């Protein structure tokens, strides 16, 4: 088990956003988390990435307890993420955005060498940009990219940090149908080529059904169902609670 949670909870005062979730993830899987709005999906993601500290329960990564690790520590251990609202470095160039992500695995507190002289970091950044099809835009200022391009950039940044597990929070949100198809293929492609474990939060059921190995359904902070796409789409309770509509 590469990543697992046991009874993990996050309470905000009286609000039980996540209420006892057991989650199992094997290396190389592509698992999707779905559920109605307010089910706790993003909160759960934030727990996994160290953005929130769990109120109760534990999170283990490769056997070690990471429940109380901070976001940067979790990232260094190999779990990187993209956010529901794209978080990039707006006034830096596309290249620098990815380069600094790649740099995070090499050095942070070097004061004397020029950052551009780390050739391996530069190369990694360029390769990742090539992978997410932003190589030609590398000198553009990140804020000038289109919405879809920014989401790709963020995925690129998450990849450049050499993750073992990639968490993607609604990666296709705000994308046109054509962009969504392209993004879906890209994600599956990345998973296969780089042999990454990926966890996806998604609303778009067509995406989920097409690329997931496994699906977890959350409702009101608890696990409603878990299984492969066929099992989940046949599950009556899932159909009742979450009518699995595609894009509105």
């Amino acid at each position, binding site marked *: 088990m590469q990543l697992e949670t046991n009874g993990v909870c996050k309470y905000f005062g009286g609000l039980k956003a996540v209420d006892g979730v057991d989650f199992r993830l094997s290396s190389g899987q592509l698992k999707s988390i779905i559920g109605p709005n307010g089910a706790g999906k993003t909160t759960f993601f934030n727990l996994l990435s160290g953005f929130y500290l769990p109120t109760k329960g534990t999170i283990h990564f490769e056997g070690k307890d990471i429940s109380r690790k*901070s976001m940067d520590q979790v990232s260094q251990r190999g779990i990187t993420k993209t956010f529901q609202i794209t978080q990039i470095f707006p006034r830096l160039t596309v290249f*620098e955005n990815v*380069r600094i992500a790649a740099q995070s695995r090499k050095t942070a507190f070097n*004061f004397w060498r020029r*950052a551009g002289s780390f050739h391996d970091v*530069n190369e990694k950044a360029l390769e990742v940009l090539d992978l997410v099809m932003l190589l030609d835009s590398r000198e553009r200022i990140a804020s000038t990219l289109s919405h879809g391009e920014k989401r790709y950039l963020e995925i690129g940044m998450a990849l450049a940090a050499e993750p073992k597990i990639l968490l993607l929070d609604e990666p296709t949100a705000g994308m046109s149908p054509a962009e969504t198809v392209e993004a879906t293929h890209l994600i599956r492609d990345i998973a296969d080529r780089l042999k990454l474990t990926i966890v996806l939060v998604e609303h778009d059921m067509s995406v989920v059904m097409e690329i997931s190995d496994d699906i977890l359904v959350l409702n009101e902070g608890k696990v409603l169902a878990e299984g492969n796409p066929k099992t989940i789409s046949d599950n009556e309770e899932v159909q009742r609670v979450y009518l699995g509509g595609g894009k509105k």
Partner: protein
Amino acid sequence: MEKLTDIKREKGKVGFVDKSVWITLLILLVLPFLISKPLATEILIYGLFALAFNLLLGHTGVLSFGHAAYFGVGAYAGGMALRYFHVSVWTSLVVAMVVTALVAAGIGALAIKKKGVYFAMISLAFAQMFYFMALSPFRKWTGGEDGLKFIPILKLEFPFPVDLTSALPLYYFTFFVVGLAIIALWRILDSPFGRVLKAIRENEVRTRATGYNVNRAKFLSLVISGSFSGLAGALFTIYLGYGSLMTLFWMTSGSILMMTLLGGMHTFIGPVVGVGVFMYLQNTISVYTDRWQLFVGALFVALVLFFPDGLVGTIKMKYRERKSRA
């Protein structure tokens, strides 16, 4: 579509420092022949102070409203080392930097993790504390309102004798130290650490999610910023010949903020330009009126409202716009 290998090779070429640094140093080299020597020396010193301040503000995104603390502590530390311990001028500079770094570390330990506005307020409060300490309870050592006087005659022995009470040698001594500091700051800003600072300024959450310890980076940024500010303070004491209480005054913190913003806080050399323009204006306007603060305050308000990028920043933007249109 360019070949990936060609791009890789092109990205790898880096020099020692950027051209703009050399140009600035060149201008500073000849400055005393263009304007009065004391004014030029003050521009050097405050220019260094502004660059150090901007490391924290413009490049890390952290506003300190009490940077006079570091400038002043450096001024007094250097002055006291000269007056009470009779060290050499070079040593006084080192002492100032070390003491100020420790003070910055102390303040950082208490306040750097806090939200921006809190840090701004706390930094102001601590600067004010030092001001009052120098004014009253520690008057015996600091000279109180009159400042730290009776500093021994300033001269350099090493590497060759230089009389620092004479205007031109004093300028070039200051230029030498400030020049080295400018190069050092430029290298720090272009290092991996410097890039992390810029990332923090752009998006702190994303920087953390990428795996960087943001608090430690901010802390170090504060310490470096404080230390170089202290160096500027020590140079100021040498320039004046005594340790001035005004170095700790809140208006010093305010002035350096205004000068930095005037020049452009998102550029490297902007603050130095801001200092030059500001001090020149101050020199000119103070001849006509005591109400310099009204002028500078109104100018600052106008800057914030209409030209937040400052002089150099606005020029850079216009240049970039013209280039992309071509």
